[in-house]
């Protein structure tokens, strides 16, 4: 699997894919896209990287154990939901920052929730593919 072309291509592709994934995430609220698809794209990027450079290098680059990434994503998602509860509103009530930000538009807890989804999906994809690579490489 360690082909030079793949390695070079991946080095270029990964940042692009990550940026594209963030683009998908942000635009999802208004156009087709969203946290899930975005997360898949980012996950695919890391998978590609692992295919090119091996799982251990990819893990090093990712820094965080993908299972903890899943936990972190879920934590972000559930925190976004819990915020409203502390204000005496039902769980998951959307809270919005009044002024729209440039580029991103209006910001609120539902978008934070989508970020959680995004992180979980990355964690999931990476967990699955990394452990498969390792298992098949035996």
């Amino acid at each position, binding site marked *: 699997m360690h082909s030079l072309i793949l390695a070079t291509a991946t080095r270029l592709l990964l940042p692009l894919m990550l940026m594209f994934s963030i683009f998908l995430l942000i635009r*999802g*609220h*208004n*156009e*087709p*896209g*969203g*946290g*899930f*698809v975005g997360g*898949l*794209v980012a996950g*695919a990027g890391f*998978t590609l990287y692992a295919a090119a450079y091996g799982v251990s290098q990819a893990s090093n680059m990712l820094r965080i154990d*993908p*299972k903890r990434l*899943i*936990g972190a*994503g*879920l934590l972000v*998602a*559930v925190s976004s*939901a819990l915020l409203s509860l502390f204000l005496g509103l039902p*769980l*998951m009530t*959307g809270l*919005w920052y009044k002024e729209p930000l440039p580029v991103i*538009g*209006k910001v*609120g807890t*539902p*978008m934070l*929730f*989508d970020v*959680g*989804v995004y992180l*979980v*999906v990355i*964690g*999931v*994809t990476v*967990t*699955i*593919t990394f*452990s*498969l*690579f*390792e*298992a*098949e490489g*035996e």
Partner: protein
Amino acid sequence: MLTAVLSGFGGAIAAPWLHRFAPRYAGWIAALLPLALMIYFISLVPAVAGGEALRFSYAWVPSLGINLSFRIDGLSLLFALLITGIGALVLIYAGGYLANDPMLGRMLMLLLIFMAAMLGIVISDNLISMFVFWELTTISSYMLIGYKHEYEKARKAALQSLLVTGIGGLTLLAGVVLLGQVTGTLEISDMLTRGEVVRAHPLYSAILALVLVGAFTKSAQFPFHFWLPNAMEAPTPVSSYLHSATMVKAGVFLLARLNPVLGGTEVWQLSLTAFGGATMIVGSFLAVQQTDLKRILAYTTVSALGTLVFLIGIGTDEALKAAMVFTLSHALYKGALFQVAGSVDHETGTRDITHLGGLRAAMPITAAAGMLAAISMAGLPPLFGFIAKEVQYKATLKEPILIGVALVTNMLTVVAAGLASLRVFFGQPAHTPKHAHEAPLSMWLGPVVLALAGLGAGLLSAQVGNALIGPATSSVIGKAKEIELLLWSGIEGAAGQALALSVVTLVVGVGLYQARSIFGRIAAAAAPLAPWGAEGWYQRIVDGMLALAAWQTRMLQNGYLRFYIGLIITTTLVLTTFMLIVGRVAITVPADWADVRIYELMVALIILAATTFVIRATSRLAAVVGLGFVGYGTALVFLLFSGPDLAITQFAVETLVAILFVLVVYRLPRFGNLSTTGARVRSAALAIAGGALMTLLTLVALASPTESRVSEFLAENSAPRAFGRNVVNVILVDFRGFDTMGEITVLGVAAIGIYALLKLVLAPEHDEHKAAEAPSGDGVPRERAETIDV
């Protein structure tokens, strides 16, 4: 009164500790409890004899009409005295009999539980709480019969008694509930006043049948009698308690208790006298054929229980009185005789009467008690048994057939009494496995007290009649009744006829005892018929049930996944088709070809073609590729019909799944050609029917006009209130964000599952199945050389 019952359970908890700290005196100390209770009950005698009934009620589940109500009237009191009195003696006896048994503590515990439960039955004034105690006796007697649990015979006998009395318990429960619904109360004292309502009710015969099965199984009436002699596997203290005073009399007690409610009708009379009579004769006839001392006594108990049912069935005041008298007399002499039998067994090492004889020299006290009790059993004056027999004959005088039944039974009882006493204590001393000695005090005390009580009751019959029998009989009749109980009531009229019958009984009985060898020959001749007896049928039913169970499990739980799936599909098809027909669902096919675009049709055809390809594919990779086509085709459908988010996601997921497949496909087995053509056709037929059903349901749902106000709301509020212009995404993260929360949780769990499946390999000692087969790391028993089969 609640304390009286509960103290038994409390004592039971303490019993094992008692045994631990005072092993030698455990029986004696434990006996103090029933003794105290007996004194308490004796203190109630004057009041109850005066016609009072003491009542106490504690709400338990009042919404269901269930209370812990207790009421002591004459009937309860008679039984309560027997239970506590004999209970005390049995506990003492058990302490001696099982002196060296490490499990004695548990035995005492069980006996106390049993006593408390039995007491609960007889003083309950609520049918459900009585039933609770009834079932407690079932459980505790199960444990008691299985006391010698290392022996399979003991376990089997315990199970048998549980099943036979258990089925009765269930019918009784149904009967009791119905009775409660008919009378509107579960309190027995209220119910007793509503007998008319019950007897006139259309459900009367059903209730009667249900209650009778309960009573008959518990009281070992023919044809349910067989469990009782088998219960002889239990140690003697248990037998003595079970068979003399208590558990087996619970059924009789129930009939007596409910006599004012259910009794007096023709069905009642007929069924009770018929079953009771049959039991009397069968029991006594089988008794005299036995050679095991305990079995002889057990069968005479069966016969005695029959007599009680028989007398209650006759139902006249005279007969009910006879029943009460016989209850007392039988409890006294049978309790004594069982304990005597136990002592004999304990001291000689055998219970076989053909190996016993002349024990009166070695065991004088036991022999004296045994002889006295046997005389009472044979019905000789001046013992209480004589009076019991006299009143019994008086009760039967009107009907020749009743006289006949009683006469035969009593004659055979005389023989049995002889076998259980003369045969053992007189004649030539026989050589026994153990050298016989007199039993210790704890073991002769019980028989002596009981035998003397039989004598005393005979001599003081008038007082016993006034204090106990009279009030008890009144309770059974349902109204106060003066009772006269005399040892000698002259030779005039009925009394004379009864006396004459007694004499005949004795003479013929003695004659039969002399000619007893014929019973052995009859038993031998009848042996081949044994499998067709009641127990044979019991065995057949149990075996049949086991066979049915095995067959059903083989059929339904056969291990074939596709069979299970087929069953589910079939069930779905049957149920939905049934409802489609019953509900007269109209199916319209809106075949509007003009509305179909050609490219849509092509997508549909691609999906269908790819599907067919996958089904027919012979290689894994081809199948996966085909599946991908189906998935992308579906994504196209989403795209064509305004679902861009769906399409993107479907494309992404499809790709990911394809990668997954490719990564593991070589680790997956190649397609085998495994199923037979028949199996294929069968599953194809089912699958096509299932598919057709879903098409049908789709069409049906499409036929209903739909205006979803929900969707409308979501679309209209998405931008202004949720600040998102992609309505689908807003639904996912806001309107129905909690679905997504669940969804990502599923994803996370799946990932962890995959990780664990791939990485976690248990050490062989954890994996018992694998360890046996393959020692290698991942445990691949037959890894095949895989080639790429594209």
